[in-house]
């Protein structure tokens, strides 16, 4: 197949996924954590698209649409939860979330 080999995409998506994981682990702001999670999900989407191109199959592409829709729903739910949290304590720093043992 002409063009860029599939492996390049896979490596890129692995790097993106890792960056996302690091973001989740190191960031303290709820929104930033959520953005890192979105990065992880989209890295996976890249993998699907790359494989779908390699297999000449639509399955991977279709799945990406589903994932995108679900990510949007997650964003809605997540932001709602953060807003509710903000109402309680005027911050969305996850380190402040210590009413119960973490």
């Amino acid at each position, binding site marked *: 197949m002409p063009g860029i080999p599939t492996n390049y995409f896979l490596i890129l998506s692995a790097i993106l996924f890792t960056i996302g994981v690091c973001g989740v682990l190191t960031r303290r702001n709820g929104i930033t954590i959520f953005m890192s999670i979105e990065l992880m*999900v989209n890295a996976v989407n890249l*993998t699907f698209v790359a494989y779908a191109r*390699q297999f000449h199959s639509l399955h991977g592409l279709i799945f990406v649409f589903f994932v995108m829709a679900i990510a949007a729903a*997650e964003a809605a739910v997540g932001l*709602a939860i953060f807003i509710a949290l903000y109402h*309680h304590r005027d911050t969305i720093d996850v380190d402040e*979330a210590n*009413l*119960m043992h973490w």
Partner: protein
Amino acid sequence: MTWADTLLLLPELIAATGASILLIVPVLGGRARGHMAKWAMLALMAVTALAVIGSTYAVAGVQQTPTFRAMFAVDAFSVFFKLLFVVVIALVTLLSEDFLSEERYSTWEYYSLLAFALCGMMFMASGVSLITIYIGLELLALSSYILAGYYKNHEESTEAAMKYFILGTVSSAILLYGISLIYGVCGSMRLSTIAAALSTMLSNDALMFGIMLLAAGLCFKIAAVPFHVWTPDVYVGAPTPISAFLSTGSKAAAFAVFARVFYVAFPAFHLDWSNVLAAIAALSMIVGNLAAITQTNVKRMLAYSSISHAGYSLLGIIAMNEMGLRGILIYTMVYVFANLGIWATILMLRRHAYAGESVEDFRGLHKRAPFAAFSMVVFLLSLGGIPPTAGFIGKYFLFAAAVQAGFGWLAIVAVVMSAVSMFYYLRLVVAMYLEEGSGAETIYSPSLRFVTALSLTVTLVVGFIPELPIRQVIESSSHLVGRVVQR
């Protein structure tokens, strides 16, 4: 897609439609009639149950009927779990009644979310493609995040929702990455195609990585160590009926997926992944039970106990034999009913918003509520696996499966930890029967009484006359076992 295909999908369609209707009722002026929501929900559950049973007649004589381009299948395995889910949701509905009426939260939306969760769980049970499974899982998860934070005026509930949300989305991203790698190696997301592809394949790193990531994502859902950190906080912070739901229905659905995916798709690489899962199971049992001993809050104790039970159930997946698969089915059922019964008792012990939090609340319960106290003992014994309760039957299956599969060491860990678990289960028995004291006031509504009585009946009947449920379980799992034998 034909008319027959739609019929097979009927239970899910009914659940989703019902959920949507419940959602718009308040907009149409139903908000005032909040108390009607419970009955609407129960009616919906009844119709869904009928549809599930009806779908079995649609496929009568056929072991498995895949439909929608082999992404969705109705078989005895899925029917078993779907019926279990419907019963769980109906019981959670009953558990929620008092809680909702006291706290003045909107009831229609609450039940609507439960119905959506049910829809997701049913898709998980019927999914024979990783796509379907993932979507069902997310539908369940998104509903659960909201439900965990439903108590929005309470900071604990919101905080629990936040923790559950962050860890849940991370875990589903991990699961998704696992799916993508498996897709890349096998070229398909259908479980049977994956199995066929793997049977001619040598072990390779990308595949093992994919399987491990998938397992990690599922381990989060079943709360196995080291993916368990969310469990105690969420169980304590979430509204109590939702904690009951998360520890029963949600886990049962995750086990349905776990069992189907690993038994159907990955038997070829059993040797490679079984040791990793065995380590996870052993850790779950050890950490869960040892941590539970030190808890003074009953909900946290139950959370750690639920972590340890995830470890026991994993034995059935690790064993990868007939006994193991049946063990998962029966153990899930047994565990679900024992747990729902315990949560009903906790809900009965009311102290302000959060109920039955500390062991002291249980003091002298056998005087104030003898039936509840007695049932509680039966449930605790069932969780501990003491005959003649249902828990013994479940543990027997799982231990036998592990011994048969050559995981003797794991079975020894499991029995030693079962003995340890009796230590903290007995603490509640001691408080209820042996200690004098007033404890918390009790409000034993007919709904709670019904939940307790039903759970008690199941726990005792399965314990004393296990033949019937076992036959059912064998019927429900034989077609998946067949694949294992073919391997």
